[in-house]
């Protein structure tokens, strides 16, 4: 119950304002720390050579691309069920960030693919499903910006997010069925010893933490912006109505 009080816009604004500096700082520390660690102080992989350093960008971005969508899905459900405005706006705020993460995963992957697979792009299932995810992000963002009335937009985009998630899962299986790809299997599983040596593992975890924190900071800040934009819209409408 008590958690819901943060869904009150003004309460949310004051609270997020208070914690945001900390989140920004932590994000910067983890991100810069992890990337510097990974870039300067880790050895090359015996197979992949120095390209293993792309790992520190590619994997966290890929993880966040999926998690951002998951967060939007949860926020959409909260909006649909409990109609908390902040949660709808948080979903809206997260979408461009998630899209950017998807772009980073795609671009770093493509650049990585050139030396590893000899081509920028192959229609591998994982790559393909990321592309589809990117399309979902685009559609979602376009839908938000195409609708004037914020509540209508929130309703429609939430349902879109729901339906989209189901179909994104379906596509994931479809692509797997369609083509067995070149891409690495999941190596970040719990029995990490088996897959990734500690030298790569620790900076990678730092980078992942950095990406997560950066995402949180961005979403909190952007949600605040959306709340203000909405308040401004309401005030302007009201000013017009009084005039």
């Amino acid at each position, binding site marked *: 119950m008590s958690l819901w009080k943060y869904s009150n816009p003004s309460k949310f604004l004051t609270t997020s304002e208070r914690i945001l500096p900390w989140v920004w700082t932590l994000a910067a520390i983890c991100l810069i720390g992890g990337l510097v660690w990974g870039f300067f102080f880790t050895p090359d992989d015996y197979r992949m050579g120095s*390209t293993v350093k792309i790992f520190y960008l590619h994997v966290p971005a890929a993880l966040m691309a999926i998690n951002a969508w998951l967060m939007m899905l949860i926020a959409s459900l909260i909006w649909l069920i409990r109609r908390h405005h902040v949660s709808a706006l948080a979903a809206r705020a997260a979408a461009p960030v998630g899209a950017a993460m998807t772009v980073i995963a795609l671009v770093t992957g493509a650049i990585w693919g050139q030396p590893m697979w000899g081509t920028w792009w192959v229609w591998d299932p994982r790559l393909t499903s990321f592309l589809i995810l990117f399309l979902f992000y685009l559609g979602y963002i376009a839908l938000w910006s195409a609708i004037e009335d914020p509540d209508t937009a929130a309703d429609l985009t939430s349902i879109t997010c729901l339906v989209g998630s189901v179909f994104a899962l379906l596509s994931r299986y479809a692509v797997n069925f369609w083509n067995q790809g070149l891409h690495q299997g999941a190596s970040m599983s719990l029995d990490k010893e088996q897959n990734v040596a500690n030298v790569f593992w620790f900076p990678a975890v730092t980078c992942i933490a950095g990406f997560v924190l950066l995402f949180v900071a961005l979403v909190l800040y952007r949600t605040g912006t959306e709340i*203000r934009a909405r308040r401004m819209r309401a005030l302007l409408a*009201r000013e017009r109505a009084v005039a």
Partner: protein
Amino acid sequence: MMPDLGKYADTVLWSYVAAVVVLGAVVAMTFWRGRRVRAELAEVEARVAGKAGTNG
């Protein structure tokens, strides 16, 4: 200082550049819009409050 990246130097550096550019763009756009909306809201709030004051 600079680690030896071997024959993959281009690849690694470009992916870092690309990622930093995209992240930087998102952060910059976030702040840019955040600042602007904050300023506009302050202005509108001042105006509306002023009007409410004169109207009684």
